[in-house]
């Protein structure tokens, strides 16, 4: 188990190094960082001062090393729009995003997992067909279309709920539903196929054949095994708590990280984009790491340090 944990930690560390390197390379490729971070109309002395301060006159590898130093001390540059620190700008948007993504995550889990399990247990029943239709619809209807349709129905036609903004909890209802339904559909589809896969295994037949009650077979033999692949997608959902609402936030003019990212991209506010990119990657890598470690707990066979099943 120790070896397993160390391998996973190492892989996460390597991935973080790759992400930071990617940000460094892309930032250097896209032009003079001093000019970009200071803004086009910054006075030349300020740009030069910035260059010396950030060591941009040093050789590239020295810059690379000090870039790492800066990142890990939380120094991610300033927004070129209002001159505030990028990291502060991003951090103050996070609560708004979590106010959407956390309730949406509950909807996904509470709706998606039971729906998937039931669909698999009652395969080819009317319930199964309904779940699959829901799953296909959730996959094929993009979130911005679903969001706008909900606005058209509940805000424009019925006038029950506000169409956008963040004044009260009622403003959160439509975006949370939009996020939740899409995710629940994906999770239901995934859980169903994981469950079907397990139910077809010989050990399930063995357990039933030796007279174990079906209820117990499902609870003790099928569910724990089906949980293993399902954990991956749930981990992914945890990892995207910060960045998972880019489109939906834009549909509902919700002032979260996603909306900040879209405006930053449109304005080419690179410090902010870079900050969000790194933050999202760190969250995702941490979530993936936790998933990997959970795999080890859930499935003793994987503790040998072998790669995760190639699925």
């Amino acid at each position, binding site marked *: 188990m120790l070896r397993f944990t160390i391998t996973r930690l190492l*892989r996460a560390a*390597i*991935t973080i190094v*790759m*992400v930071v390197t*990617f940000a460094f390379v*892309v*930032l250097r*490729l*896209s032009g003079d960082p001093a000019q970009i971070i200071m803004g086009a109309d910054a006075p030349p002395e300020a740009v030069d001062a910035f260059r010396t301060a950030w060591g941009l006159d040093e050789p590239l590898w020295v810059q690379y090393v000090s870039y790492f130093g800066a990142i890990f001390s939380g120094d991610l540059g300033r927004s070129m729009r209002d001159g505030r620190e990028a990291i502060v700008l991003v951090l103050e948007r996070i609560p708004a995003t979590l106010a959407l993504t956390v309730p949406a995550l509950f909807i996904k889990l509470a709706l998606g997992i039971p729906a998937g399990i039931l669909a698999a247990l009652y395969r080819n029943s009317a319930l199964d067909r309904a779940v699959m239709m829901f799953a*296909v619809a959730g*996959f*094929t*209807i*993009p*979130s*911005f*279309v679903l969001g*706008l*349709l909900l*606005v*058209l129905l509940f805000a*424009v036609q019925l006038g029950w709920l506000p*169409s956008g903004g963040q004044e009260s909890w009622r403003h959160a209802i439509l975006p949370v539903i939009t996020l939740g339904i899409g995710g629940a559909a994906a999770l239901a589809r995934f859980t169903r196929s994981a469950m079907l*896969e397990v139910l077809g295994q010989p050990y399930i037949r063995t357990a039933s054949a030796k007279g174990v009650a079906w209820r117990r077979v499902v609870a003790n033999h099928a569910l724990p095994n089906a949980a293993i692949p399902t954990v991956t997608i749930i981990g992914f959902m945890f*990892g*995207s708590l910060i*960045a*998972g609402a*880019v*489109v939906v936030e*834009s*549909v509902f003019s919700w002032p979260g990280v996603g909306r900040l*990212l*879209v405006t*930053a*991209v*449109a304005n*080419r*506010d*690179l410090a902010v*984009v*870079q900050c*969000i*990119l790194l933050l*999202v*990657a760190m969250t*995702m*890598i941490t979530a*993936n790491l936790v998933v990997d470690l959970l795999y080890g707990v859930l499935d003793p066979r994987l503790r040998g340090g072998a*790669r995760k099943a*190639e699925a």
Partner: protein
Amino acid sequence: MPEAPMTDVALGAPPARRRELPPPLVMFGLFWVGLMLAVALLADVISPYAYTALDLRNRLAPPVFAGGDWLHPLGTDELGRDVLSRLIYSIRTSLIIAFGATIVGAMLGTTLGFLAAHFRGVVENAVMALVDFSASIPFLILALAVLAFFGNSMLLFVLLLGLHAWERYARIARGLAISASAQGYAGAVRQLGAGPLRVYGRHILPNIASTLIVSMTLAFPEVILLESGLSFLGLGVQPPATSLGNMVGFGREYLTRAPWILLAPAVVIVLTTLSVSLIGDWLRDRLDPTLR
């Protein structure tokens, strides 16, 4: 499943392999994709107006079924541009991008997968580290970051979307190529003196092509959704060019007064992704028993 094959064997009956028509939903999918392809190919011929042509006297005209006239069957937008014509050209743009990006992704991923399978060792670890890297950033965020750093052009946009799902092809190609190399036919052509390019290009690739094609069919709707999502955010296809997501994005301003501007492209997006996924699932079941 258990009984049917046994009775067949017992009766000595030949295996029943009738050519069956695909299920109705898949037929619909094929029909719809065919229609979309025809529309994209014939856009210049069938489009009633140029997609930029203004008709300022008929701004926000409703479609035929909502009290409009046949001058503009699907109505017009805020500048009096014909929604049907814009829809036709949007279908063309979105399909070209989705096809281009899917092919780029498949080629890139397959090549990297083959390289990993051929050289193993360091190369394989490097490719697998890249796979880890792309799993660490949600693709939408990565795409937005690249667009912010490099600005936007049509070519960059297609290449960027091509990066979507490359790791899926890479993993499939690597796994299948490793197992194919261990099989007789790959060894045989190698013994005959074929170089790696020939072995992979002419012998292994055709043998794993069906799996790759299925993956492409399953990735294609995702690319359409990504393109339309980015264009909806105003960061994908830039005006005056128009795409399906782009139309929804601009139509959103007129959600209350002229919902048809937005609904027409939304319906096309949903039906197209639905159709391609249905075809993809069906193909997977037919061509690729290993993937179930």
